[in-house]
């Protein structure tokens, strides 16, 4: 089943009232959307706020999603519009030359949703995660490391990886899974600690 069909399944479940299905889509696309928003907004805290707003808008607009495009394509458009509206609401110009009237800017829900921009904790946490993943990768056996690099960084399919590594597709599937589990085992304490800190 293609990635798009997995998304369509999750969207269909969300449209049928399953909010957890939408949560899974948020988990999947939050960083990808964040990268997009960072092209318009420099401050990481503001990127988080706008990303959050975009997802909430996407959830409210779910009944209008018919599946004609991929879910991320649809989310991408909502993200762009949310970023532009945010910049207009903040009195800043959007970096693109396409004009949009400030009167048309939707009301941006700020106030209690915005945090202090001086929040280095999230930046520090991101660096910790990146360092932990990098260290875990270095500790992996060569075959597992190669398999997950070819998949996650090069974006190759299992068939292509199997050809390169001269092994069956089932072996590729197993190696990638074992690599993920090995890295996850080192990440989980860090993630659990972050959750504890919030309380």
């Amino acid at each position, binding site marked *: 089943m293609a990635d798009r069909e997995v998304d369509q399944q999750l969207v269909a*479940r969300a449209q049928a009232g399953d909010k957890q299905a939408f949560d899974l889509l948020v988990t999947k696309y939050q960083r990808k959307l964040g990268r997009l928003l960072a092209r318009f907004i420099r401050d990481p805290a503001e990127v988080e706020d706008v990303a959050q707003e975009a997802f909430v808008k996407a959830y409210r607009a779910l009944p209008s999603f018919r599946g004609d495009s991929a879910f991320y394509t649809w989310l991408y458009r909502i993200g762009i519009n949310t970023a532009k509206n945010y910049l207009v609401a903040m009195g800043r110009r959007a970096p693109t030359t396409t004009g949009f009237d400030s009167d048309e800017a939707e009301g941006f829900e700020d106030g209690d949703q915005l945090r202090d921009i001086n929040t280095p904790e999230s930046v520090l946490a991101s660096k910790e995660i990146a360092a932990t993943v990098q260290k875990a990768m270095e500790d992996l056996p060569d075959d597992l490391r190669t398999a997950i690099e070819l998949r996650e960084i090069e974006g190759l399919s299992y068939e292509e990886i199997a050809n390169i590594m001269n092994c069956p597709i089932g072996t590729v599937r197993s190696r990638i899974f074992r690599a993920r589990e090995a890295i996850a085992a080192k990440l989980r304490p860090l993630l659990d600690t972050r959750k504890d800190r919030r309380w």
Partner: protein
Amino acid sequence: MKQRLSAMMDDAAQDHECEICVKRLKDDPELRAAWGVYHLIGDALRGHTAPDVAERVQQRLAAEPTVFAPHAIEPPRRRATRYALSMAASVAAVALVGWMALPLIDDPRESPPPAIAKLPEPPLVAVPVAQGVGDYLLAHQRFSPSLAIGGIAPYIRSVTEENGAR
């Protein structure tokens, strides 16, 4: 199950595995946590570890009215089935028309079809058009369903009346 999830994320799982996974994700917190960590690993390897807004979004959505639009999108399998059935129906219709037309095809080996009595053609009669109908038709042309046809076609009926009827 986690291995199925891992494969599903890479478009490498069978359809039935994906269906099982998607259903289990709803009720299995450990599987949902794995979904989150696996995606985090992929994003971290590509150099992106922020933002992490899933929890905040979840909290905000908890306060949102639940969306309920169950027929807004067709599941992929049902859509594919619908297309397959439409194609099958089309092929069946073409086959039926072809089968019915077979007797009409001249075959020199077969005996000629029986002669069909020809009815006399009805005489063509000019029907006088009431005065002002032409103007009426032109004025109400925009309400005609034949507007779906482009060009001058919609106006053909309006301009074919005889000059004498005006």
